[in-house]
């Protein structure tokens, strides 16, 4: 049991892929203009992480050391393609916005990193949990960053959530500040770097305060 708790804590906080390992920055910085994009990419990444971790773990005794990396990449690419196709058929509007960043999940080193560092050494249930927690940790950072940038950049929260939730989402969109002119810096790429830097700083601050 303790093992599982440790895995969860590792993924969400101690070894958070976005804040500690600083992996997967390309999609992280590119799509976090708003919360909805962040949730969409977060879910896709989490799904790929769980699937690739579980598969790698199940076959870990059969995959020889020499060809493990090509096999991992192959599996990850296959899962990402499947996610992309599913998204294209069930969440088409969201797919249009995330566009190129869905296939780019393949290049998220966090996924290959977990396959190599964790899944190839642990049982499938632990690996699946690790995938889930690492994915959630990554998604959480995406969402916080997305919320920050959307709020500062455009004064709204959950704008366009109908893309993800259909008509249900339309009522979710909140205009926090009325008549807000928007801050361009937050929406442009530099805003993503500044925002991520602030989140990393807050996390380090909290860690330092702990005994």
């Amino acid at each position, binding site marked *: 049991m303790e093992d599982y708790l440790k895995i969860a804590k590792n993924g969400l906080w101690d070894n958070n892929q976005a804040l500690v390992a600083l992996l997967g920055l390309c999609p992280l910085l590119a799509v976090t*203009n708003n919360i909805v994009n962040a949730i969409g990419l977060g879910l896709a990444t989490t799904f790929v992480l769980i699937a690739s971790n579980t598969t790698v773990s199940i076959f870990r005794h*059969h*995959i*020889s050391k*020499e*060809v493990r990396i*090509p*096999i991992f990449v*192959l*599996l990850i*690419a*296959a899962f990402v*393609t*499947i996610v992309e*196709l*599913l998204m*294209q*058929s*069930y969440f*088409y509007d969201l797919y*249009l916005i995330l566009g190129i960043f869905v296939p780019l999940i393949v290049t998220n080193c966090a996924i290959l990193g977990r396959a190599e560092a964790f899944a190839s050494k642990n049982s499938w249930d632990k690996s699946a949990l690790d995938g889930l927690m690492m994915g959630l940790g990554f998604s959480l950072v995406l969402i916080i960053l997305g919320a920050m940038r959307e709020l500062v*950049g455009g004064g709204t929260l959950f704008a366009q959530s109908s893309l993800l939730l259909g008509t249900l989402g339309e009522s979710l969109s909140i205009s926090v500040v009325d008549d807000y002119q*928007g801050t*361009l810096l937050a*929406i*442009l790429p530099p805003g993503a770097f500044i925002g991520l830097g602030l989140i990393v700083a807050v996390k380090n601050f909290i860690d330092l305060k702990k005994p």
Partner: protein
Amino acid sequence: MVIHPILKSGLLLLIFTAFSVFFVTFTQERTKVQIKHNENQLLIKRLGELVSGYDNDILKDKFFRQTTLHGVRQKIGIYPAKKNNQVFAYLIEHTYPNGYNGNIRLLTGVGIDKKLLGVRVITHKETPGLGDKVELRKSDWIKQFSGLSLLNPNKNNWKVRSDGGVFDAFTGATITPRAIVTATYQILHKPCLLKPEDKVCLEYDNAPQ
């Protein structure tokens, strides 16, 4: 039996490749119809913003022309909107190469009375927050073109305000609005595009009438 390590690795790769290909192909087969359907729905929705009341299968009637437009040789896609087999408008899909960040794909609707039905941006790479106000979901700016024609406003006024014309530009982004205004004007100005009956000029020779 001892298998040579290299052979074993090769076999492993082969097995995993087959495994991956199988699942990807399977998913692709299962989602193919839905994806095509989504793409068509989006297109019909976009076309419907510019033209309504047509009774033909507008996606099926689409045809292509190779022509020089906006200074580049390009393949433009044309959707004829028909009622009772009579074309009453053309929706023209074309690329304007001189946006702030390269190509802007536009959909321009022109009635056979040579009046604009409207303009929509299909894809662009303009600056977020500045140039992207040409998107309908960001601003209503793009809507002002419906009803305009070559004579309204007159030739000298078919420009953004800072160039002496009548169209507003955005604060901090003049190039994008200028690009759209110019591209729209050129569509109207290319008489070929507005004279479907003039087969020589128009290169519409294979156009279904």
